[in-house]
């Protein structure tokens, strides 16, 4: 069987015609397998949804009780039969609950990695290499310029800045699911135990992480009764980056804008975004990790999805590994 007969791209996303299911579909479908809870991968309105327990919980938090018609939870490593196709979920190390999905039929194995990373992250289960014939990898940071530093060094920059500018509120932009909790956890691991203030958009997800055993310390809502320039002086405030351009941000004293993202590696990106303190902390693989993973998984073929496909495909060609871009649409390349 050709791999395309088992799984191929369609406008709705990757589709398995034998098992009659989509993976991370970008429009409502009958049956969806979801890798993780980010909104570009996990959308509401599907018929049946198969995902890890945590991903299902996150979808419920974000979309409400009726986010799908019926749900089924998959344990990591458990073999499930979907209309004669064997599927299993394996940790991807991206965010809480994130999984790679292995799809097998008649000895042909395809792994859809979803988004993944190899760096240490105490807020989710670490990535496990899964042997396969076709490895479908993301390429969000698929350019040789991306080398994510040790995230603790980045947090050290934040803590240094808090000492240098003790009057300024340090606003740390971080996406609401995964990045925000990881950043808070990292700040705690670096020895900071003052209260951390959060934007309302983060509250339920932070509570959920806590319930799953990820301790975030003293976190408080960044709300105020009336305008008080002295409030949040020298405090760490975590919120979605978009909120900092909003009127919401006016409650803070001389805000210093930080942004935790893999994109912060490139100075011009930070400058355009008005970011004063870039923190290069990513939930995706950097270039060396992408190459390392392909080397470890040793697939006979690599398919590259969302991101900078051309560079990764070029590298595979130089290494004589068959590779092709999938050109899937609908996955945000900004979501880190």
């Amino acid at each position: 069987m050709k791999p395309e007969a088992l799984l191929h791209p369609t406008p709705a996303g990757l589709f398995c015609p034998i098992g009659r299911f989509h993976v991370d579909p970008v429009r409502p479908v009958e049956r969806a397998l979801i890798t993780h809870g980010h909104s570009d991968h996990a959308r509401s309105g599907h018929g049946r949804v198969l995902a890890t327990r945590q991903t299902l919980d996150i979808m419920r938090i974000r979309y409400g009780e009726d986010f799908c018609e019926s749900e089924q939870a998959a344990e990591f490593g458990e073999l499930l039969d979907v209309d004669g196709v064997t599927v299993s979920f394996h940790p991807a190390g991206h965010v809480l609950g994130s999984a790679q999905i292995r799809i097998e039929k008649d000895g042909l194995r395809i792994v859809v990695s979803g988004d993944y990373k190899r760096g240490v992250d105490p807020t989710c289960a670490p990535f496990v290499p899964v042997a396969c014939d076709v490895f479908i990898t993301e390429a969000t940071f698929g350019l040789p310029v991306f080398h994510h530093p040790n995230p603790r060094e980045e947090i050290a920059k934040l803590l240094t800045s808090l000492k240098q500018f003790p009057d300024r509120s340090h606003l740390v932009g971080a996406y609401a699911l995964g990045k925000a909790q990881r950043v808070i956890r990292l700040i705690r691991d670096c020895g900071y135990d003052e209260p951390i203030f959060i934007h309302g958009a983060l509250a339920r997800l932070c509570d959920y992480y806590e319930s799953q055993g990820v301790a975030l310390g003293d976190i408080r809502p960044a709300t105020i009764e009336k305008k008080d320039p002295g409030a949040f002086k020298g405090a760490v405030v975590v919120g979605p980056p978009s909120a900092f351009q909003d009127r919401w941000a006016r409650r803070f004293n001389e805000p210093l804008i930080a942004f935790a993202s893999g994109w912060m590696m490139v100075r011009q990106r930070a400058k355009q975004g008005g970011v004063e303190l870039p923190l290069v902390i990513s939930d995706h693989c950097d270039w060396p990790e992408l190459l390392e993973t392909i080397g470890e998984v040793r697939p006979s073929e690599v398919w590259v999805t969302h991101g900078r496909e051309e560079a990764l495909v070029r590298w595979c060609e130089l290494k004589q590994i068959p590779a092709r871009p999938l050109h899937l649409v609908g996955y945000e390349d900004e979501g880190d």
Partner: protein
Amino acid sequence: MKSFSTLLDRLVLTPSRNGKLKLLADYFRDTPDPDRGYGLAALAGALDLKSVKPAMLRELVLERMDPVLFQYSYDYVGDLAETIALVWDGSAKDDTNDAEEPRLSEVVTRMNALGRNEVRSAVRDLLDHLDPSGRFAFLKLVTGSLRIGVSARLAKQALSDMSGHGDEQKPAHSRDVTEIETLWHGLEAPYEPLFAWLEGRGERPVLATPAIFHSVMLANPVEDGDLAKLDPADYAAEWKWDGIRIQMSSYGGTRKLYSRSGDDITGAFPDIVEAIDFEGVIDGELLVGGTLRSNSPTRSFSDLQQRLNRKTVTAKMTDDYPAFVRAYDLLFQGDQDVRAKGFLERRERLSGIIESAPHDRFDLSDLVPFSDWDELDRLRIAPPDPVIEGVMIKRRDSVYQAGRLKGPWFKWKRDPYNIDAVMLYAQRGHGKRSSYYSDFTFGVWTETPEGDQLVPVGKAYFGFTDAELEVLDKFVRDNTVERFGPVRAVRADKDFGFVLEVAFEGLQRSTRHKSGVAMRFPRIARLRQDKLPRDADRLSTLTAMLDAREA
């Protein structure tokens, strides 16, 4: 290198002056000699470092990288030094150890000791031993393109700031920035005696080099009620010419030209420097055109701008835009310090020097006779030359004191021009203003084949109060018609829009702007919610101002 590269990374993204000062002062305090001295030299544009051509850097990176992957990377990043800094490790993780990273001083001394054929391997080796941020700083230094928004003046202010907070056991021994500026041109990297003095560990450095810069005396603007308290008989007045303040310093055969903040601009004005035939230190205005005694006109600031911000200058430039100095004060006569003498006495001595100096390059700033403040006000409002922007008022007996003291010297500028313009675009500000639309592009009406249209004539981001900013920001958010990244276009038609009264100091023709005019120091003077866009000014009003001046 680590502390310097970290500093650069922060400075590039820190918009506020106070923020930059804090980062700089902390760096100077926490970094050991001689590294901080080389860092200071790099920031102040005074670092002498062997340069490397971008072509060689490109060859070095392609030794170890596929050209196609490099091109993808370069296209994405857009800056050669940054691309190389980021891709240098290739598929490996950065494994540099902070403790083993070469220090800035080691990098500088090693580079400067290299022979012609050793550069390539030394650069390769340094790149291997620096982390990505260190590589970026190194590459920017050796390609000579460090652009981080820090002036020499700001670096010196940071030195002054750090000097007050050395050892907490000892009393503060803060050094004034003007004193640092005075010493500056006599010292060289890595400035160890300077730091020792700033930290109270050493004597004030003794200068070996003559023709150094001396900090200048500055004037305060005349404010309401200032003059009523003063007796006009105690003061002399001069025209305030629209050029740039400079200082000529000549001693023992060394002739230098400094800007107001102490930057050495000697190289850009050979026509003036070569004509200096006196010894001493003279304060004056740099202008282009002819001196008063050569009887040809003084030319506008936009002509002068052709000569500014250049390292060297062509013969055609000096022919087309001849520079001269209109002298107005004398600090040293030969090696005699005359700053403690009164203004009129200094001027008398200056007059003698200028009299015998080349007539086409130097003249003496005229005194403007007046008997009372009203008379001076009338002269100020209608000056006899379009390049005059007001009057200077100086106490006849004032000694020459560096800095901006209130009392001895005043500047009384011609009133600004005002027009009513319509807000066209708004952009978010930085820092405190990052949640506000606070930078406004405004336009005036002009006739086109498609009827009247608004054409942009300037951009302003100050002049309004915090309360007014709330009003402006709300208007932008409520009336956005289009977005381009951080910029919003707002609704602006004849019967709906926001009229701004814009004040500005002067007007120039410009080929860079669609409107053909450019304003100097535009700011928002008032919000004119009482007016409709149809009542705003027309471009022809502005061009008429230019025509009138040129006629």
